[in-house]
């Protein structure tokens, strides 16, 4: 009897050992980071800390830039998610031959192996006022000087930033949705829909794509989070105002005034709480939908 109990316990420990991984390798460092960030912002730690104070939080929250920066970051992240979702879903759903194309696979894999800062510099090389497109336009007589070329980078609508981040994240989403198509076997749903009287257009757009979005929503959430936290691309291709949150935050930790560092940690803590709260809401909502 005892050996059976021991065997059950051992099997149980082995089967649940993955939880140790999540706790030890993720939860613990994240919790540490959050607590350190909180302690620093409240003046409880740090070389120049003077003890408990909420002054840094007050200054961080009352600084007018916070609302603008958050709105701008959400706008860019949302735009990137829409662009990436649109293209990757189209490739996965419309391209039976594309899914088997080695050419596409190589391009996706190579692009996914390109660092964000390289994408940023390449975007500058192509789309900046003095970039390749502008030079081609000049040679064709369409513009007379680089200043006449339309602003695509460092522009009001952050088009360059959205383009750069989308290019960086597109391979990840496309590979994911291509794999999802194969794993779920969406063709049978398309054929079923056609057998029930749908046209090919309806089958793809009204049956397959919504199913893929639902099944792939976690990847879209990840894309949104990765876009939100993007740093190098908005730093080089965006404007100083409005800035994306990660750029603004990073610059505040690099400011000359050491006494402003706690404000940056306060903002970092707000960022973490807001994003993790949104994530929690999303996962709960998804579970409710799945249970229905």
């Amino acid at each position, binding site marked *: 009897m005892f050996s059976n109990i021991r065997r059950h316990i051992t099997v149980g420990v082995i089967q649940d050992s993955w939880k140790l991984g999540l706790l030890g390798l993720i939860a613990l460092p994240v919790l540490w980071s959050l607590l350190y960030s909180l302690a620093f912002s409240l003046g409880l730690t*740090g*070389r120049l800390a003077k003890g408990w104070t909420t002054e840094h939080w007050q200054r961080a929250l009352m600084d007018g830039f916070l609302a603008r920066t958050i709105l701008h970051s959400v706008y860019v992240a949302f735009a990137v998610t829409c662009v990436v979702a649109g293209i990757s879903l189209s490739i996965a759903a419309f391209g039976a031959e594309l899914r088997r194309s080695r050419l596409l696979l190589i391009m996706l894999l190579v692009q996914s192996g390109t660092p964000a800062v390289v994408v940023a510099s390449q975007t500058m090389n192509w789309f900046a006022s003095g970039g390749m497109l502008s030079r081609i336009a000049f040679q064709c007589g369409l513009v007379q000087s680089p200043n006449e070329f339309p602003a695509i980078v460092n522009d009001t609508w952050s088009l360059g930033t959205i383009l750069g981040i989308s290019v960086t994240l597109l391979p990840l989403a496309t590979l994911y949705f291509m794999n999802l198509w194969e794993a779920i076997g969406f063709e049978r749903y398309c054929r079923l829909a056609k057998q029930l009287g749908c046209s090919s257009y309806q089958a793809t757009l009204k049956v397959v794509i919504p199913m893929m979005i639902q099944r792939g929503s976690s990847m879209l959430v990840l894309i949104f989070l990765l876009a939100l936290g993007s740093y190098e691309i908005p730093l*080089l291709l965006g404007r*100083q*105002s409005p800035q994306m949150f990660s750029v603004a935050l990073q610059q505040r930790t690099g400011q000359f005034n*050491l006494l402003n560092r706690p404000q940056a940690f306060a903002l970092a803590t707000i960022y973490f709480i807001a994003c993790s709260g949104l994530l929690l809401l999303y996962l709960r909502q998804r579970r409710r939908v799945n249970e229905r």
Partner: protein
Amino acid sequence: MMRNLLKLLLCAALVSLGFSCKRPEPALELNLDSADWDQISTAARGRTVRMMMWDGDPLINAYMRDYVASQVKEQFDLQLEIIGGQGNVLVNKFMLELDAGRKVGDIDLVWINGETFYQLRQLKALYGPFTDKLPNNRYIDWKNPFIHTDFQQPVDGYECPWGNVQMAMIYDSSRVTTPPKNKEELLEWVKQNPGRFTFDNGFTGMTFLKSLLYEFAGGRDSLNGPFDEAKYQAASEKLWAYIQQLKPYLWKKGETFPEGVAQLHQLLMNGEVDFSMSNNDGEVDNKAKQGVLPETARAYVLESGTIRNSHYVGIPINAPNKEAALVLANFLISPEAQFKKATPEVWGDGTVLALDKLEPEWKSKFESVPGRERVAPRPELELKALLEPAPEIMIRLHEDFRKRIIESK
């Protein structure tokens, strides 16, 4: 095949667990306060010295990796390792290390100046005073106010001067025949040539603003001494009013600024603007040779003056090899190392040595440094040199520039 793949993955995982930590060993304890130079240089022999410095310029990197590294190896049996890092990266690193109680760090020497020095002193993160221990200290021009004072703070031996530069305006002489010499002419020129001028949002741009701030504060020496809030407020109000006048005529209508001077150089090279700037008056020559700036680029300073400052090397309080750091610092201020970097094709950095303290042979070498073609000789520029004001001014300028110019509609 899957079995082999799994075995491979498992092996890799095990290897990672057995990976040994790579940490610099703490040096043998030599009492640096009482040791003489022979003892210090003997203790340093055979050591590896790590220097953290800005590594964004390939010429400076080549000077350090090829010339300095080989010379210190040959002369002192020191192995030099260069680590990239500067400014806030450096400050954050030491801030956290000291807060976490890390008594033995991994960096022996750091390239610093100005606000970085100010912040590291605040954190008590620097070892010193140490410059008196260096034999080549006797050649340093300590009477020069641009050397013995760093952003209005006495150096006090906590950092050793390494080079000396002056902020210069750079323009393309093929497009600009008469560059503006003062702020009034600059405003006039910018209005007549909209979209052809800007400055960066980084260190160089702020140095440009500091130079203008002196004008609004009352001229040369007006901002010397400790930070004065009332004086700053009065001068900065005029500065922001001036910049607001410039703003609609700046590149991209002043709605965005290049993030750093490298981007600004690229705009000049592309012909999007006609001006760039640099903290190093000698940079125009070596950047034109590298193809970063056009061949027709020229540099000058405003009649009202531009900021001149020195850059330094410091030793972190938790440096593991302080003896090796001292030996390296001493070599960096030797006449041969200073002369080597003075030539534009190597770096074009000004020397911190007093020429009248050098041997006649070295004195004449420094007086006839070849290759400076696109900018006036240094003694001419020094007549219009302004001291770096207190570091609080840099801090305030950065914050106020964001609030008053970037975020204003």
